């Protein structure tokens, strides 16, 4: 089963973004990252209204075994955070590309991003 969703774009730091071209862009972490982290127990996100900068840390994600920085895949203003996910971070493991999304951004510019195929190849996987 593929751990990379074909319709998304990815940062090298394992965030995904989904943009329909109109509304804000949704940001999450890939299944590759969620699996590697283990069971996620705490996610610290930027606040709504905060400006994040592509390539810089904007939060952290903590599992039972480790803690990792979250890197902003895009530059822009945070318009919404997934409060249901913050309450129950296990949803990031269960559904990283769906209910486990992290936050939404009004994107000013994108950082360097990979296509799903490039991201899959970089992580030894296939689409």
């Amino acid at each position, binding site marked *: 089963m593929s751990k990379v969703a074909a319709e998304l774009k990815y940062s090298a730091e394992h965030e995904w973004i989904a943009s329909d071209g109109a509304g804000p862009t949704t940001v999450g972490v890939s299944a590759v990252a969620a699996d590697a982290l283990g*069971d996620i127990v705490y996610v*610290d996100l930027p606040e709504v209204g905060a400006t994040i900068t592509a390539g810089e840390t904007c939060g952290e994600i903590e599992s*039972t075994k*480790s*803690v990792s920085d979250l890197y902003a895949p895009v530059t822009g203003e945070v318009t919404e955070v997934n409060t249901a996910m913050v309450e129950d971070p296990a949803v990031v493991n269960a559904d990283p590309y769906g209910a486990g999304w992290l936050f939404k951004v009004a994107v000013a510019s994108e950082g360097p991003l990979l296509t799903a195929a490039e991201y899959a190849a970089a992580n030894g996987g296939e689409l």
Partner: protein
Amino acid sequence: MTEKSQTENHTALYGEHEKAGASFTDFGGWQMPLKYSSELAEHHAVRNAAGLFDLSHMGEVWVDGPDAAAFLDYALAGKLSAVAVGKAKYSLICNADGGIVDDLISYRRSETNYLVVPNAGNAATVAALLAERAAGFDATVRDASAETSLIAVQGPEAEAILLTLVPEAQHELVTGLKYYAAVEVGINGQQLLLARTGYTGEDGFEIYLPNADAPALWQALLEKGTPHGLIPAGLAARDSLRLEAGMPLYGNELSTEGHAYSAGLGPVVSLAKESDFVGKAALAAIKESGAGVTTGRKLVGLKGVGRRAARGHYSVLKDGATIGEVTSGQPSPTLGYPVALAYVDVEHAGLGTQVDVDLRGKAEPFEVVALPFYKRQK
């Protein structure tokens, strides 16, 4: 040092782990299952039902001969000669400076025969040290680690699961087996060494057996255990379980740089033993100095006030000044708050002391609490 250079050792159960979809990690020179699916689910299974562990990376060293007891009294910090046949004892093997080379469990199998179980990463070192220290004693030291597997069943359902594989005539041997005791019993059609020991804070058993027989027993325990809620559990769950139970892990809390008195293991050291043992003079001097009581640092439990967990090597602060270091830490799956073990200066080690832990540049409040963090209801 006789460190193992290969990091690709596989236990006899490696194929079973692969079949079960385990993710692997290198531990003590072995490729071991870190988790099978969710380490949290595995943790909760052990607390609420049962978990099945492959511990075949642990060492097994047999000590045999008329002087076996006297020799272990000399080689280890505890008084092994006082252990009754059939019982086990937690002990330390120290160097001449009192530093901890390993923590281990020794099972007395007869008047003249013991099984000593060191940690995986230290097995070769311990076997070599024991062989060296045996000079002058009428006792032989045999490292059986490579040919011996160890399977643990841990959790409140462990006994019921095990009994399904034991002939009814021998059930009392199992139900009557005390904590830290071992017995030979028929399991899955073979006479095997069964110990009521563990590293999880739950009731449970550890079964020693030849490598060739391990896969069949693993499969049988899985089959019989599944209806009881048993699932295979990896090292991630093992670590979170032992941390909740306040048990030290060699390499985190214990090392040659530390000693028993700082680690809260003073009672494990038998200075009252009439005979000499390796490290005795140094440990007597350390105890006399008040280390871990009136001076130096002491191992304590920390409970997080917030949600963020302390991790190994993070600094412990009091009023901004460093007063200690975290050795293990993570969110406690059972208790729902962060827990950690840390060495802190004795003047800040009192129960209820408010301290901070430097969580990547941000001071987060923690409180010194009694160990263990978790104790099962009996």
